């Protein structure tokens, strides 16, 4: 309807706020990275001072997330709808949810040591969103005007965030168990080894990753079903092997394989950790390459 009001000025403010959040994320990231390097120090006195740094980093991360959240909400108000209808919006909302879930999970599980990864990754997504994906607020094309946009996409964002954290844990696991890390005499690797020694045990990393992945898998299964219901409404069939549907299926199947691997002798441990990483790479691929370069209905060229 023509009554939809788009507020370009507010959108510009939202962008500034998000850029402000990026600045604070940068500080948080540097603090965490510095913290890790301090922890790995051979001197005991240096290590003792590091805990404080970590606390500062968490506070910075929380502030960054708050500012980030404000930016996301403003974007939604500027567009007078949910702020996840295009790649830019999906990126800023998604990275916000990742940080939010990470901060929430901190209250339950001690996974502070992947804070460097989480803050760095969110910063990377925001940077890409701001420089490559940015577009002005636009009204929704009719195909997207559905409450399924709210449900389907929100759950996909949530699932992605859980997979993201799980992937971080699996990567840490893979480094920790890697033979070359254990054996190498290189100085850099030695530093890395000392940092990794501070991470939870291999066993624990594996289990934590599994916890996040099972939540991610349940949410992804829902995303898949919700997508099919929406496709039945919007594209007159519930499944048509559209490129985006194909990749949703591929990702689901990889994670089903991951869950099986966990229960299969000879496949748990490293191989299943690799599957968790491959699954997440497929998610990133789906969001970037498939969105930008593959032809399909999700770019919606049918109705103009």
């Amino acid at each position, binding site marked *: 309807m023509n009554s939809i009001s*788009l507020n370009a000025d507010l959108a510009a403010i939202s962008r500034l706020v998000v850029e402000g959040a990026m600045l604070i994320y940068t500080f948080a990231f540097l603090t965490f990275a510095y913290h890790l390097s301090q922890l790995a120090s051979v001197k005991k006195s240096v290590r003792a001072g590091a805990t404080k740094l970590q606390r500062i980093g968490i506070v910075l991360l929380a502030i960054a997330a708050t500012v980030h959240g404000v930016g996301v909400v403003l974007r939604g108000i500027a567009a007078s709808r949910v702020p996840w209808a295009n790649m830019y919006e999906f990126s800023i909302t998604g990275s916000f949810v990742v940080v939010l879930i990470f901060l929430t999970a901190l209250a339950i599980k001690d996974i502070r040591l992947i804070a460097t990864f989480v803050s760095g990754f969110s910063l990377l997504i925001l940077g890409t969103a701001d420089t490559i994906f940015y577009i*002005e607020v636009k009204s929704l094309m009719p195909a997207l005007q559905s409450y399924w946009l709210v449900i389907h996409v929100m759950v996909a964002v949530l699932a992605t965030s859980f997979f993201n954290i799980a992937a971080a844990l699996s990567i840490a696991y893979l480094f920790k168990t890697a033979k070359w890390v254990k054996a190498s005499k290189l100085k850099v690797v030695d530093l890395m080894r000392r940092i990794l020694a501070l991470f939870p045990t291999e066993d624990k990393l594996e289990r934590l990753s599994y916890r996040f992945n099972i939540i991610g898998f349940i949410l992804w299964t829902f995303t898949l079903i919700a997508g099919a219901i929406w496709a039945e409404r919007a594209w007159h069939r519930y499944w048509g092997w559209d490129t985006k549907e194909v990749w949703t299926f591929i990702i689901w199947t990889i994670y089903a*394989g991951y869950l099986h691997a966990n229960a299969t002798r000879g496949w748990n441990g490293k191989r299943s950790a690799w599957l968790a990483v491959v699954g997440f790479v497929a998610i990133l691929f789906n969001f970037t390459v498939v969105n930008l370069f593959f032809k399909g209905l999700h770019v919606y060229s049918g109705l103009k």
Partner: protein
Amino acid sequence: MPSSQPSNEDVIQPAIGLKGWLRWTWRQLTSMRTALILLLLLAAAAVPGSVFPQRSADPNGVTAYFDANPTLAPILDKIQMFDVYTSAWFSAIYILLFASLIGCVLPRTAAHARALRLPPVATPKNLKRMPAFKAVAVTGIKNQDELLAKAETLLKKQGYRVAREGEGSTGSVSAERGYLRETGNLIFHLSLIGVLIAVGVGGGMSYSGQRVLVEGESFVNNLAGYDSFSPGTFFNENQLVPFSVQLDKFEVDFYRDLTLKNKANAGTPTDFRAYVTTTMGSTGKKSAGLIRVNEPLSMPRANLYLTGNGYAPSITIRDAKGVVVYSGATAFLPQDKNYTSLGVIKVTDVPKQYGIISFFYPTVGELPSGALTSLYPDAAIPMLSMNIYQGDLGINGGQPKNVFALDVKNMKQIAGGKSGVKGLRLQLGETAVLPKNLGTVTFDGLRRFASLDVDYNPGGVWVLAFALLALAGVTTSLLVPRRRVWVRKTEAGFEMAALARGDDPALEKVVADLAAQLTPNKSKAKKVAKPATTDQPKETDE
């Protein structure tokens, strides 16, 4: 496996060798590792379908690919790269996967049904070896059995199935919970079979028909009523319920920004509305309906979807004597987001056939090169341009030709291009003179058209039902913990242990809580032993 190696005895009794071999194959097929590898293969096999255009989803893309890669395309076609999801290799993988699934899940279902009727397993001799273990010394228990009875009640309350073994000082309680975990897992896997069957059967009984309707036109729901129609394998024509649909009016909203601040958004469509009147063939009952994107119209055994729209200029052509040789509103295909549209008019009722390739510009503007373009999708300054070709239209050959294309190979251009005669340009209401004394053409009016898709798939609700069942099953299976708990009377008090299936972060806590509840007076309880294995989760800070 020995039976996989044929020996002399196998030659004498080939039946056993074959049977053994079959059993071995079956055991391999239904192993967890095979399932895992088939799942990963399926994921990998799905990838090419997103790289190459698929006939089912994008037939034009396939044609274009053949044109662009004339040597490679036929090779790819041989290995079914344009029909990945119905290809022999993709089908082979999922058929094997589902065979494995059935072979794996049916025996497990039977085993689980048996387990549900059996009491929990006997208490193991050595509880210390369990991942969570605790021994508690209690003094002054009057009745030995009282404690076990209490343990029994407590565990029952927490949803455990409980069995009591022995009496007095050697008595124990064995408890198990979380049978739902296995139930959920089985429901999940069985539902996947349901999904597959519903997809297959539903797809076979489905149909999909397309029809372009200009405002004012109507069509009847039978095979002749559609421009194109694709039935499933089991479809029969009687499935089509007789009704007709008339498109009364088609409306579009475009985003208008009078401040012109948001240029990128100006002209984006924000709503499409097709107002229709439907008439039931059996009763003649008429009713009004509205079809929008995301809001199909439900008819008996048919859903009507809006899949496209555009302009249909009304054009009348008269010959030199003033006799009407062509008249009507013709759908023009939109070419860009401002609805620059392409249409083809074939004039056959004349001594020398001719065709017109025409562009329609809803809001006409001129590019620096002099070429026309459309500046805005709404019809503010509508204009038609026409190039005319004379010659064989290819219609008399009996070959059905695409109504949106004109094959000009055997035709001579007589207006526009390099023909020496300027192409025609008409504004709404104008009449222009055709070259070669062919008569006149008038742009009388402007209507819109809607492309409708009529679809029916009775399998859809079943697919959804099984998919939701699978979701419920997998959620239960992944989140419900399954564990066994044992309590045994000892000389000094009692000992207890717990064992979980899979990862269970609460295992230690379960034992600790139970110990606390069983101890009459907390101060008297004293931990005498630590868990035998310490690899169970215990959240610690760094």
